[in-house]
C-alpha cells in the first residue's frame, strides 16, 4: 500500500511550518511520528497534497521543568517520555501511560503531540492529559493560545485545533507531593489499543480523598472525564464500598462502540474494572 502522490516539506522552524500551513490550507497535513498519519495515507483515508514534516524542528523537542510545570515539546516521542528521569520522578503517570502505548517501534516514532492531535478515542494520551490537568499551546501566525485539555476533545478526530495552528507544547502542572497515580489499561495483546482504560491521579489527606481525577480511554467518542465519580469520592475514605460506587458512576458515562474488542456491555463492565484497579493502585502509591 502506497499513499497518493503528495509534495513533501521539511521546515526547520515553527514559523516556516505555519507559513506552509497557511499557504496550502486544506491541501496540507502535518506529519509528526507518522504512525497514525502514514497508515491512514496508505489506506487512502487521508490524501493530503502537501505533507509538512515537523521532525526537523528542534524547537518542538524536549522535556523541561519551568516553575511548577513540566513543559514538553509536541514532537517529543513516547520513548523519550519513558526514559525521562524528570517525568519518572515528578510525573510517573505519563511514563506508565506511554509505556502501555503500542510497541517499542511505534514508541520510537510516535509523538506526544501527534497522539493528542490525532484524537482517536483509542489514543491513550487524551485521557492522561485530562487527568493530569494539562494544557496545550497552539501556535499560529496570529501568535499563541493556551487551552485546557479538559474540553479540548470535541468528537471523533475532532478538537479545538483550528486551521493554521500547530500544537507546539504540552504543559503539565507537577502533581502535588504525596499524590499517587495509575493508568490501568486492558488490551487484548501487546501493541493493541485499549479495550478499556482508566487514568487516576489521587491525593489523600487525613484518610480521605483530597483530590482525585478519573478519566477513561476508548469508552466514548472522546476521552471521558468521570466528573460524578470524582465529586462522589472527594472527602470520602477510599474503601471497597466507595471504590465500587465510583466505578459504577464512571460506568454510567460510558458509551463505547461495539467492535472486535467487545460489545457495549463488556466494554462498560471493563471500564468499571479498570476504574477500580486504577483507584486501588493509585491509593497504594500515595504517600501521605
Amino acid at each position, binding site marked *: 500500500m502506497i499513499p497518493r502522490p503528495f509534495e513533501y516539506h521539511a521546515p526547520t522552524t515553527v514559523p516556516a511550518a505555519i507559513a506552509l500551513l497557511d499557504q496550502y490550507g486544506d491541501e496540507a497535513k502535518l506529519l509528526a511520528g*507518522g504512525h497514525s498519519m502514514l497508515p491512514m495515507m496508505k489506506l487512502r483515508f487521508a490524501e493530503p497534497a502537501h505533507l509538512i514534516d515537523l521532525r526537523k524542528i528542534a524547537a518542538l523537542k524536549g522535556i523541561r521543568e519551568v516553575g511548577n510545570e513540566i513543559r514538553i515539546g509536541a514532537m517529543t516521542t513516547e520513548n523519550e517520555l519513558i526514559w525521562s528521569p524528570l517525568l519518572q520522578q515528578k510525573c510517573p503517570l505519563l511514563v506508565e501511560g506511554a509505556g502501555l502505548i503500542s510497541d517499542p517501534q*511505534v514508541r520510537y516514532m510516535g509523538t506526544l503531540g501527534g497522539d493528542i492531535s490525532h484524537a482517536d478515542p483509542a489514543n491513550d494520551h487524551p485521557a492522561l492529559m485530562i487527568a493530569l490537568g494539562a494544557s496545550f499551546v497552539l501556535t499560529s501566525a496570529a501568535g499563541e493560545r493556551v487551552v485546557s485539555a479538559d474540553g479540548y476533545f470535541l468528537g471523533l478526530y475532532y478538537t479545538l485545533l483550528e486551521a493554521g495552528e500547530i500544537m507546539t507544547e504540552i504543559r503539565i502542572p507537577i502533581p502535588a507531593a504525596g499524590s499517587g497515580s495509575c493508568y490501568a489499561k486492558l488490551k487484548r495483546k501487546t*501493541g493493541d489499543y485499549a479495550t478499556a482504560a482508566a487514568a487516576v491521579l489521587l491525593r489523600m489527606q487525613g484518610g480521605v480523598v483530597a483530590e482525585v481525577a478519573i478519566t477513561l480511554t476508548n469508552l466514548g467518542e472522546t476521552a471521558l472525564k468521570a466528573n460524578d465519580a470524582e465529586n462522589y469520592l472527594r472527602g470520602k475514605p477510599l474503601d471497597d464500598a466507595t471504590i465500587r460506587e465510583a466505578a459504577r458512576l464512571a460506568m454510567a458515562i460510558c458509551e463505547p462502540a461495539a467492535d472486535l474488542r467487545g460489545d457495549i456491555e463488556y466494554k462498560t463492565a471493563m471500564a468499571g474494572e479498570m476504574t477500580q484497579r486504577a483507584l486501588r493502585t493509585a491509593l497504594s502509591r500515595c504517600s501521605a
Partner: protein
Amino acid sequence: MIKKMMVTFKLNGKSTDVVVEPRELLIHTLREKCLHTGPHIGCDSSHCGACTVDVDGMSVKSCTMLTVQADGSELLTIEGFAQGGELHALQEGFMQEHGLQCGFCTPGMITRAYRLLKENPDPTEAEIRYWMAGNLCRCTGYQNIVKAVQYAARKLRGEPVQTSYPLMETTTH
C-alpha cells in the same frame, strides 16, 4: 506532477543516494532500489515488525516511514551485521538456540534485538519480552528467540556462551 527528490543516507556504513517520489516507503527503497531484501514485508500495516530497520539509533518499522524522512540518517539493516565473514553475536545466538523456523521474522527480530541490547546489555527475560513486543513470529512460540537474545547478550558482555541445545552425544550401548 510531483517532483522526485534526492535522498542521501548511510546504509550499513556506505553513503547511498536514491531518487524517490515523496510517497515511497522506506521498505520499498531498501528492497527495490538498494537491493537489501533482508527487511521483509509481513503485514504492511505497522504491526508485525518484519520490516524493522535501525534508523539513527531507533528501531523503526520501515513500512511506516517515508524514504524522504530518512534523508541524512544512518541506517542499519540485517545486511550490515556479519563482519568479515563472522556472524554477529545475535546471528550466532539465533542459530545456536534455534530462534527461528521459517526465518521470515528473523531479520527484523535481530535488528530490533540489536538496539535493545545497546540500550540494556543485561536484560531480564521479562524485559526482553516487553522490548521485543513489536516483532511477531508465526512459528517459534518465542521461547527460543528469548534464549537467542540472552545468548547474544552474554557473548556481547564477554561472558562464556553455551548453547542450550548441544549436539546430541552418541551413546554406546
